[in-house]
């Protein structure tokens, strides 16, 4: 039994808009990651996955506000701590973050080593600058990054290099948990591979103990993470191992999501390609019942009124739905059988929504 690195219980956070409306972008989210494991979070744009990433840091500034719930990192609950304490003792050391737009994540007019110095001094004001430089050099060497990069400004680095430097800086203090928010979306294929390889190296070399990887590119998750979690409208709708989630999704939304992936295999051109019709609900006024009900083609009248329970089945997998696993699998089986009989029929009426970026 390995150690639990990150445990989140019932975390709820909200945005306050310009017009003082509350948007609960993260709604009673609970999750658990064990040492050495990685968790992927998938969902459409605006489903709250990026907000979840920010909320997990335990450091809030407007318009994001903490409401309730616990964040426990390696046995330490950080959700009750005061902000400056979080800043000094949690950010960067316990939990670290790789932002979505890493291209612009670095101050363009500060040299990389100076920025690393700022990061370390923010946690240890007495640190020796020479030692910091040596340490940064060592770390860059270990990660296979060119040492010249340290003496350059961010603007002088290429896109892929910037992203790798950002990863190196985020993990400079050996955080226990690393949250990567779409770290590769804006990169070309080669750089993308390099970044993924680097993140794996991080785990192997022990610079990080656990990782959360957020993306809308599902195939990537299958290759990178151990577990996958699907989010919809601020809530978790299903969680399971990567393999299970890709080949045997249970929740109707997960299934819709997986079905809308384009896989470059033979027959893809002819295979049915489903997009989920409709748009996510407005979180300023979330629906009373199941949040997916409006777009769910299996929804029963009760789904629109009742809050959905989180159900556990088969070796710890969970999902949030009003139907049982067996009911759902039965429906899917029939559907697939029908589809095989009429392969050319297209069921989707909208564009392929999920492959578009944020």
């Amino acid at each position, binding site marked *: 039994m390995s150690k639990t690195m990150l445990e989140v219980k019932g975390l709820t956070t909200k945005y306050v808009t310009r017009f003082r409306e509350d948007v609960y972008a993260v709604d009673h989210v609970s999750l658990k990651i064990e040492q050495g494991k990685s968790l992927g979070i998938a969902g459409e744009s605006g489903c709250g996955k990026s907000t979840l990433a920010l909320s997990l840091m335990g450091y809030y500034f407007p318009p994001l506000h903490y409401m309730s719930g616990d964040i426990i990192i390696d046995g330490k609950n950080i959700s009750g701590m005061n902000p400056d304490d979080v800043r000094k003792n949690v950010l960067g050391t316990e939990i670290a973050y790789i*932002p979505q737009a890493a291209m612009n*994540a670095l*101050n363009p*007019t500060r040299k990389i080593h100076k920025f690393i110095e700022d*990061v370390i001094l923010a946690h240890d004001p007495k640190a020796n600058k020479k030692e910091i430089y040596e340490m940064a050099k060592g770390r860059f060497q270990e990660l296979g990054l060119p040492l010249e990069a340290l003496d350059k*400004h961010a*603007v002088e680095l290429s896109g892929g290099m910037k992203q790798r430097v950002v990863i190196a800086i985020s993990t400079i203090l050996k955080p226990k948990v690393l949250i990567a928010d779409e770290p590769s979306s804006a990169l070309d294929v080669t750089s993308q591979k390099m970044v993924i390889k680097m993140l794996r190296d991080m785990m192997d070399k022990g610079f990080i103990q656990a990782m959360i990887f957020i993306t809308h590119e599902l195939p990537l998750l299958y290759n990178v993470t151990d577990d996958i979690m699907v989010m919809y409208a601020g809530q978790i709708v299903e969680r399971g191992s990567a393999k299970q989630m890709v080949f045997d999704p249970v929740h109707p939304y997960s299934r819709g999501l997986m079905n809308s992936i384009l896989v470059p295999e033979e027959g893809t051109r002819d295979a049915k390609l489903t997009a989920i019709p409709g748009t996510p609900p407005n979180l300023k006024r979330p629906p009373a019942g199941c949040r997916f009900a409006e777009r769910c083609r299996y929804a029963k009248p009760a789904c629109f009124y009742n809050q959905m329970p989180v159900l556990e089945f088969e070796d710890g997998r969970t999902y949030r739905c009003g139907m049982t696993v067996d009911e759902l699998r039965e429906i899917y089986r029939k559907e697939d059988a029908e589809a095989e009989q009429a392969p050319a029929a297209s069921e989707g009426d909208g564009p392929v929504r999920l492959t578009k970026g944020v």
Partner: protein
Amino acid sequence: MKGYRKYFGKKLAWFLITLVVAVILNFVLPRLMPADPVSAITGKMAQGMTDASAVQEIYKRYEAEFGTNKPMIEQFFIFVKNLFRGDLGTSFSQYPRKVSNIISSAIGWTIALQLPAIIVGWLLGNLLGALAAYIRKGFDKVLLPISLFLSNVPAFGMAVTLLVLFAVNWKIAPIGGGYAFDMIPNFSWRFVKSVISHYQLPFWSIVLVSIGGQAVGMRSMSIYELNADYVKYARFLGIKDRKIVGYVFRNAMLPQVTGLALSIGTMIGGALVAEIIFSYPGLGSTMYSAVTAADYPLISATTLIITIMVLIVTFVLDIVYGFIDPRVKAAQFDA
């Protein structure tokens, strides 16, 4: 360093090209005058003279002095040759004083007044703009409209207002001039004190006018930077807010240097007119008296000197900017 040298070379080339164009324009434009300047001037000088041959004499003398009897190209080379020797011709209104002599006695006053005033106004404006962006809320709500209003008061309007309030009504500052009129410039303590007291009003009127515009620009620049991704990232790495504000201020300030370079011409123009209001003995007042007296060589020389001053300031700012903003260096590598 290679990138920087390239940048420097490019800027220097531009400086020289612009200088040449400015000199040519300065030479050509007045000569496109529909009326012959020499006859206009002769008419003025010969007022009351009845002897036709005497008038003719005067006309010939000025024609020779200007060289207007020679072809345009030849005139231009004489003009450039004289320019290199620092000879800008002879003034009409203060005959036989040399124009270079008048200019050199005025230029010091203008530089000593405008350079510090514009720099102080720029710094104060940027500081206020950054504060407005950082504090927002009430401070911003009050400060922004005031800055906007201030930046729209013309420089001469500010000058007149300050003059009337402080010098005419409250009598706590002298009415005008560079020093008390009963003094002869020297290095006595009394003279320096007089210069300083005469310096205040023109100085602050230029400062006040430049503060507004800079503050408005800096505010929007800072708001833009505060929303930048690097601010969020730095926060999530646990860097203190104070340090981050430092980043933002620096990054917002740098483009303001270019902004200053682009607007320095307009600012100096406004400040020159403000000089007239205070009868400050600088280039603005010189130009004014030259225009009033139709002193053509003096006008031509003042405009040339002002152009060259602006060109030099712009060049220096460009060079400094290339040094302090790494983004310029990066752009040079790309190019």
